[in-house]
């Protein structure tokens, strides 16, 4: 089991370490600063923390000593345009940081608002915009989903072929590349958007994908938490089947997939945009072990009445699928050591949690 958990909050990065007594928090790094994304790179042990400073912009830091010290590195940035006006693009937030494949050390991907995908080949020393995705005509129709600006929140790198990429855009659908990002295709047939005019419900480019996650041992199995439903793909994100009638709700943000069992996944249901709170103010984690045919809602250890929302980067599953962590908008943090059946609160007074990861 992983005994280290990095938690990115509105007021800094807190690393929890499990010892014989329990989970102990570190002194926060970047105290007072909003952390928007965290990556623990399994290839070289580096930790990356993206900041969204309220006044001074997006920043990126790396630690090569497990969080003891940090160095500021380059942050993704759009190419400067001549004579810019108000509409020239600028990175608003690093929404996700993802390690490239095992065969491409040093490669990182960053998904951002307003929708730029950036790649680094040198552990964040420099970044380049993926121009081919940025210039797809459909991007003109991307919309904000929760945030004012559209953004890329999920980047899946196929462990069998690092050139095979699948990304999720809120709001802008699922996009796939077979050539390392040189060219992109809009995929996701079967995703359904009930918030659009009826004739557009299955339009690929309007799908509000909240989160994509693949099974590490069976990467063709991709699960999707969508704005108005839960979906599963058996062809790596080309097509999806909708999972319906899940109690207490099919809406949510966070999603976890068992690393070795493609039929097992976890969701955290809520009431959608009109409220954004747990159903009946009762936080539960729903789990399926049969590819979404049935779900069990688990509440043991979770609060009786609460307003905790679990954002899309705030559920993580460890490498063997037994230990999970969730962190909430209310600054609560829970861990399960039995694959999601029982939960223990390990902190109740953090600031709003934006991202967490074992590592």
């Amino acid at each position, binding site marked *: 089991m992983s005994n280290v958990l990095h938690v990115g909050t509105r007021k800094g990065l807190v690393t929890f370490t499990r010892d014989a007594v329990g989970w102990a928090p570190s002194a926060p790094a970047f105290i007072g600063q909003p952390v928007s994304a965290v990556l623990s790179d399994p290839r070289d042990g580096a930790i990356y923390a993206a900041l969204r*400073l*309220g*006044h*001074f*912009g997006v*920043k990126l830091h790396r630690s090569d000593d497990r969080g003891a010290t940090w160095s*500021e590195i380059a*942050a993704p*940035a*759009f*190419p*400067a*345009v001549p004579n*810019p*006006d*108000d509409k*020239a*693009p*600028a*990175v608003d937030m690093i929404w996700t940081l993802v390690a490239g494949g095992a065969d491409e050390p040093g490669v990182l991907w960053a998904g951002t608002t307003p929708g730029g995908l950036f790649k680094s080949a040198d552990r964040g020393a420099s970044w380049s915009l993926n121009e081919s995705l940025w210039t797809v005509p459909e991007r003109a129709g991307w919309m904000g989903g929760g945030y004012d600006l559209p953004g890329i929140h999920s980047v899946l790198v196929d462990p069998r072929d690092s050139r095979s990429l699948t990304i999720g855009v809120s709001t802008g659908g699922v996009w796939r590349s077979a050539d390392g990002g040189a060219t992109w295709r809009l995929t996701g047939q079967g995703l359904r958007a009930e918030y659009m005019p009826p004739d557009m419900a299955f339009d690929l480019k309007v799908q509000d994908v909240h989160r994509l996650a693949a099974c590490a041992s069976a990467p063709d199995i991709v699960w999707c938490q969508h704005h108005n439903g839960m979906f599963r793909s058996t062809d790596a994100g080309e097509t999806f089947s909708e999972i319906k009638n899940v109690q207490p709700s099919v809406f949510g943000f966070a999603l976890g997939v068992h690393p070795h069992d493609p039929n097992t996944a976890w969701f955290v249901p809520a009431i959608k945009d009109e409220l954004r709170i747990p159903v009946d103010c009762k936080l539960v984690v729903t789990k399926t072990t049969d590819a979404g045919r049935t779900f069990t809602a688990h509440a043991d250890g979770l609060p009786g009445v609460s307003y905790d929302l679990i954002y899309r980067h705030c559920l993580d599953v460890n490498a063997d699928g037994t230990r999970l962590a969730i962190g909430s908008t209310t600054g609560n943090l829970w861990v399960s050591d039995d694959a999601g059946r029982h939960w223990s609160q390990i902190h109740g007074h953090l600031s709003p949690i934006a991202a967490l990861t074992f590592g």
Partner: protein
Amino acid sequence: MAQVVFTPNLQRHVSCPPAVADAQSVRAALDLVFAANPQLRSYVVDEQGRLRKHVNVYVNDRMVNDRVSLSDAVAPNDEIFVFQALSGG
């Protein structure tokens, strides 16, 4: 030479001692400071060179008008203050 002074709150993130610049516009003055201290640039302006939304710049007691091109004029004995806006907290 114009004086360029940064909010102490920026010092938490990046070195930004007071500087002097022989320049006739805010843009030119800041570019001279950034040339000597490249890491400071992205804290004050975005990748398009525009003043960050929640950063304010004053020339003496006048807030700059042109937040995109920073074309506001600077005289030799002016003081340029780079502050954080209260709106970004």
